[in-house]
């Protein structure tokens, strides 16, 4: 029996968040909660108890790195895996700046909705 994972998708672009929700729910059968801002994500990372946070890097106000740091700084959410979703053309150039955030991985935008869950599962070592 496959495990139903719970993903917190964080993106200020609500259209992309909705596509990610559809992709993860329909392809993988995972449960999805969405947040439209870093501040909202910070709260949901504690209250919704997600198995992973899929976090957009560039958002107005509190951006992805600041949100990740806030999640890591709260003992109630410090250990949740975080995957960055970024449209930066060379995310590897940011690696040294993100190292302290203990990311599980990075997925580039644009993403293929059909393979998003498989990509996340591979990063997280999830099977089934």
């Amino acid at each position, binding site marked *: 029996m496959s495990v139903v994972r719970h993903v917190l998708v964080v993106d200020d*672009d*609500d*259209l*992309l968040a*909705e*596509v990610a*929700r*559809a*992709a993860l*729910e*329909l*392809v993988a059968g995972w449960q999805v909660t*969405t947040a439209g801002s870093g501040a909202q994500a910070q709260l949901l990372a504690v209250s919704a108890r997600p198995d992973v946070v899929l976090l*957009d890097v*560039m958002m*107005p106000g509190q951006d992805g790195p600041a949100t990740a*740091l806030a999640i*890591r*700084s709260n003992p109630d959410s*410090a*250990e949740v895996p975080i995957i960055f979703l*970024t*449209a930066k*053309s060379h*995310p*590897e150039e*940011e*690696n040294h700046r*993100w*190292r*302290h*955030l*203990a*990311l*599980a*991985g*990075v*997925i*580039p*935008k*644009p*993403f*293929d*909705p*059909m*393979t998003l869950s*498989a*990509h996340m599962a*591979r*990063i997280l070592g999830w099977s089934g």
Partner: protein
Amino acid sequence: MVGVSAQLQAGGSPADSVGAVVRLIGEHAREVNQRRAADIAAALARDIREPLQPAELTELADLAHQVAGSAGTFGFADASGLASSIERMLAESALGQVTRLRATQLRTAQVRVRRLCEQLAAEPDYDYPDSGDEHGTDAFSAGVGLADPRDVPV
């Protein structure tokens, strides 16, 4: 938009359902991205009369970034790449002084934005380039996630 996937879940394979959701949302996303591109074009046209301030250029770079992140998922892979190049040019221009080089760069960006508008007016192509190992990366190979979360400075 919330709940679109649930509405389409009944019947068909997951691939069909996801495809239907992406196309449905994509119609709206295309309009949003066209509006973003038009806003960038209008601002760059104004720059000829009065040079844009660094903060304005940064805002335009952010707009281009949004197009880059969104367009490819909704069937406009080439437009996404073009938007990324525009984003870089605008971000670099925001850092520099008002020089001939900056003017040249912004004129080039202007040409690319025109092409971006044309591409976003074409039919979407939902044949995604391969994604996975060659694009994304886990933290181990990227070297970004090796620290223990408990070691993160607060």
